[in-house]
């Protein structure tokens, strides 16, 4: 291998290759059209093309590949949820991340280093016990730990003994991890494109025509196409895209803001999260400290950051790790999250026979990229909603069969 690498390096004639082909001309019709070229849409395209053998697929992306919430999330991968259907679903998501680099032949830099959620009150400790027992029952690695163990897991933490935010203990989720968000999207896109999936960047859907309970045509700014089956995975624009198809989704949009510091030497080898301080931190493989989790306090469809939220995040981060006070911020951003009333996603069928939704991913979508892609592809390929997705159905709101995960959706709420 080293010799092969050396001789490759010394060769003059390198064959150039492209991971993602250039956007082709739009055809008149496709078997499957996926609206949204983010992680979820691309994963769906990957499973449809590589597992179910669907040949004619187009992914329509309004902007550039994975430039929406796939690029703006804070890459937390975990399964420490509260309800049985959620844990079952997200657990499989974590497992798919474990083998993703190998499965795709594409390094997604998955790092399973564990997530530590901090409790600053007895009430939080009680809720942690519930989550831990649910997780153990479902076979995930999760336990409630005391303050001493928290210190051992993350020795740099300010324990604030006797203070307002004293750390009483934590929820240690050894399955938790992080991965490189762009690589996840590109890996799926590359392997899907190899099987003939067309990825149309800078192609906005402007209208969806329906007749007799089916979608007949999709109008884009580059032409009109016919589609056998349609999957919607449009991130922050899910509400608007669904409206084009005449559907209403129970979604409200709030921006979620995050930021990263300049790169530092590795010191933080767990993901640390505090619900009280509405802050979570993770050190990326490049050494940057990713500081996340501030949702704007009112509905907004803007990706503009606000000083208030950045100040708030900095306050939380400095409280947990005071020695970060001289560290500079490198980048900051906001993404539009499509929040559902119960903090669970909406996946599966709609009242239109050939239209499937993968929406309401709010602040918790990245971790589910592989597993939602897998099962959304199964929906399209078989025409049936798999059992694992049934609890996430759109009509659960009309049945008052909510799947409340508000307490388990990280630190932003």
């Amino acid at each position: 291998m080293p010799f092969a690498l050396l001789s490759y390096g010394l060769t003059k004639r390198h064959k150039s290759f492209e991971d993602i082909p250039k956007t082709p001309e739009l055809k008149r019709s496709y078997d499957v059209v996926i609206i949204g070229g983010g992680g979820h849409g691309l994963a769906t395209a990957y499973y449809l093309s590589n597992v179910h053998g669907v040949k004619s697929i187009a992914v329509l992306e309004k902007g550039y590949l994975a430039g929406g919430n796939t690029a703006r999330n804070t890459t937390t991968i975990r399964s420490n949820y509260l309800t049985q259907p959620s844990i079952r679903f997200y657990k499989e998501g974590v497992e798919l991340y474990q083998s993703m680099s190998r499965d795709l032949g594409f390094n997604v830099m998955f790092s399973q280093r564990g997530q530590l959620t901090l409790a600053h009150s007895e009430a939080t400790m009680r809720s942690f016990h519930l989550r831990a027992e649910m997780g153990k029952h479902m076979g995930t690695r999760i336990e409630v730990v005391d303050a001493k163990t928290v210190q051992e897991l993350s020795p740099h933490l300010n324990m604030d003994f006797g203070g307002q935010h004293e750390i009483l203990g934590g929820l240690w989720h050894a399955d938790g991890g992080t991965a490189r968000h762009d690589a996840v999207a590109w890996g799926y896109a590359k392997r899907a494109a190899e099987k003939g999936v067309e990825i149309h960047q800078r192609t906005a859907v402007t209208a969806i025509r329906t007749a007799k309970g089916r979608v007949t045509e999709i109008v884009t700014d580059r032409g009109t196409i016919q589609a056998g089956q349609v999957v919607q995975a449009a991130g922050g624009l899910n509400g608007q895209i669904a409206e084009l198809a005449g559907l209403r989704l129970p979604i409200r949009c709030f921006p979620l803001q995050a930021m990263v510091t300049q790169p530092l030497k590795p010191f933080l080898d767990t993901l640390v999260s505090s619900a009280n301080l509405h802050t979570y931190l993770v050190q990326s493989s490049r050494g940057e400290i990713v500081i996340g989790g501030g949702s704007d306090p009112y509905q907004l469809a803007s990706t503009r950051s606000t000083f208030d939220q950045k100040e708030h995040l900095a306050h939380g981060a400095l409280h947990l790790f005071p020695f970060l006070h001289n560290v500079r911020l490198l980048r900051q951003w906001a993404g539009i999250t499509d929040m559902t009333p119960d903090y669970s996603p909406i996946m599966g069928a709609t009242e239109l026979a050939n239209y499937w939704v993968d929406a309401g991913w709010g602040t918790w979508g990245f971790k589910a990229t592989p597993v939602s892609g897998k099962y959304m592809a199964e929906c399209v390929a078989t025409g049936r909603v798999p059992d694992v997705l049934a609890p996430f159905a759109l009509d659960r709101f009309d049945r008052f069969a909510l799947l409340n995960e508000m307490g388990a959706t990280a630190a932003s709420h």
Partner: protein
Amino acid sequence: MKRLTCPVNGIRDIAEFQYLGPFRSTSPEDAAALTEHLFYAPNPIGPMIEWWRHRPTNTVFLAERHTATDHVLRTWLPGTAEPQEGKTQNG
């Protein structure tokens, strides 16, 4: 710092206000209307009418705000005919 015009107290720092969500009507007797009220709140990209509260004085009022630009177009007390001109400022 962003500011909002309270119809009673004038221009105040937005930190003094609480967001109470989009304005929408409902009927507790009608199950469909209740479901609509609870789960299907308006989520436009554009002007939206919503409830706000000035916390220190417990003044609940209505505002029309553009959800893409975040500009408040007007604020007024419920039941008053004349909406008061309002605006947000950064400074």
